[in-house]
């Protein structure tokens, strides 16, 4: 994978559901999951997004997306948090966009 980006989730019973939510929110995107036991790398090329709405479908109607922080030990790329979504993208994406390259 050329520019892998995405969260690194720590041990817990929510990991599979978060991965499923990421897959739902990024249709057609190859999502790679690397399981190291106490942590799981979830990554895709260049950019992935996760929404509160999809997380709630898996983790309950009152799940707040801010709670993802409690299981995200690290991440790859630049993270952009809003009140209802999280996006991971390659660090140079903003610079490339400003330069009109993308």
């Amino acid at each position, binding site marked *: 994978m050329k520019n892998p980006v995405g969260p690194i989730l720590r041990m817990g019973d929510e990991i599979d559901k978060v991965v499923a939510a990421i897959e739902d929110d990024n249709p057609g995107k190859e999502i790679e999951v690397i399981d190291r036991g106490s942590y799981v790398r979830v990554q895709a090329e260049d950019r992935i997004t996760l929404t509160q709405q999809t997380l709630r479908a898996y983790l309950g109607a009152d799940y707040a997306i801010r709670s993802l922080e409690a299981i995200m030990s*690290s991440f790859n790329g630049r993270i952009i948090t809003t009140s209802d979504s999280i996006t991971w993208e390659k660090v140079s994406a903003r610079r490339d966009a400003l330069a009109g390259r993308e």
Partner: protein
Amino acid sequence: MSLLRREEWQHFVRDVDWAFSYVDDEAVYPEWHSGTGKVPREAWLKWEEDYKVTYPEYVATQREKESAAYAVKAALQRSSSFDTLDEGWKSSTKMHFGGIALVEYAAMLGELKMARFGLNGAWRNMATFGQLDELRHSQITTFFGHEFVGKDPQYDWTQKTFHTNCWVPISLRNLFDGMMIAPNVVDLAIELPFTFETGFTNLQFVALSADALQSGDVNFANMISSIQTDEARHSQQGGPTLEILVEHDPVRAQWVIEKSFWGSARAFAALTGPAMDYYTPLEHRKQSYREFMEEWIIDQYIRTIQDYGLKKPWFWDEFMRGLDTWHHALHMGLWFWRPTIWWRPKAGVSKDEREWLREKYPNWEGVYGDKWDVIIDNINANNVEATLPETLPWLCNMCHLPACNPTQSRDGSWRVRDWSLKYDGKTHHFCTNACRQIWWKDRDNVNHETVIDRFLAGQIQPMDVSGILGYMGLTPDVMGDDPDYAAWTKDYVGRSATGLALAPAESEES
């Protein structure tokens, strides 16, 4: 009542960079603390964090993290899980508790400095959360370590380490005072959040948690990976700072990253390398130290640096070669000078373990095998005294770690090099070329005296091993020893041996 979305109100309460009318900007943000340098003051108006958090969100999430961490601890309180842990793994945790607990406190001081002198309201806001994070880390680490003091006095060094003059905390104080206490906030944001917390802490707090869980230490794995969730957030102060600095002063940005990268790499070779490749029981090792470094530093961190428009550090080749040697040499040093440390270093060189080391590090046997063989044969000849230190290693004048790094000569042999430098009437000795060059470029910065400097200056009396152990605060109940000599020497019992030191009794007879 529906609440406003964060995006609709956060900038009103966070962006508080009003114009001062009674004092100059310089009085509020003095250069020696705020460190704008060649960056125009107004350039900092663009500083914006990507990982946005509000105070209500912060306290709610932190409460969830704390509840989860302490719930696991409480659940395991009455179990016998601690007693079943391997002594080697326990050493990894002792090293972590003592080596990290008060570094977290120093990091809190660094975050407070950014919370006060950061050049943008958003930055100061993020650093305020960062200092609360680091206070949490210092508290949770000392508290979790304290639980075991009654079972093993070495855990008392969780709190004690940084109040002693042991050579390990002196080395770490030198690194972290330079990274967290001394710098202005621009350099600090790049050294601590960006280089150390985006790169290296992942190795000790996430990668090592994989070995912890495999080793059955659920509590420790849970604690360190919980800590790193805070780091993942507040480390994001580094990116926006770096973007602005790269735009206006890329030479400074490159230098600050290189200096802190090198210092971190040296420290982690000593702290994390032996824990992963020797102390963790063979059957519980997830990956080698080198493989974890490749995953977290070589691939992930370097790609990030390059995405910000910076180059690989100039010492890259020397660093990459060191991945196969530094931590093996430091492990041997830690084991040999074991009375000077507060954990029980496991040698970890049984036949099976050596096979694993050879597989992961093809040069291992050629560089280290014969040295360990001499030690093994002395142990099997019942001459442990020959494996104990009577002299001191030279400690590098930059990283304060033993100067013990072998490099390969043109004829194929491996030799430990001395990189020396004469300056101001004194000859300084370094463990690597990069330590020498960084010291030279940074020579006016704070540099602690190494234990060897103190020894040679007569500050340590009496001038022998007992004097230095006393100076370092090591008492007989705490000083390290191998937890199980037979575990790694029994494979070799009965073989013909060369290079044996004569046992004291035999010397008297001869």
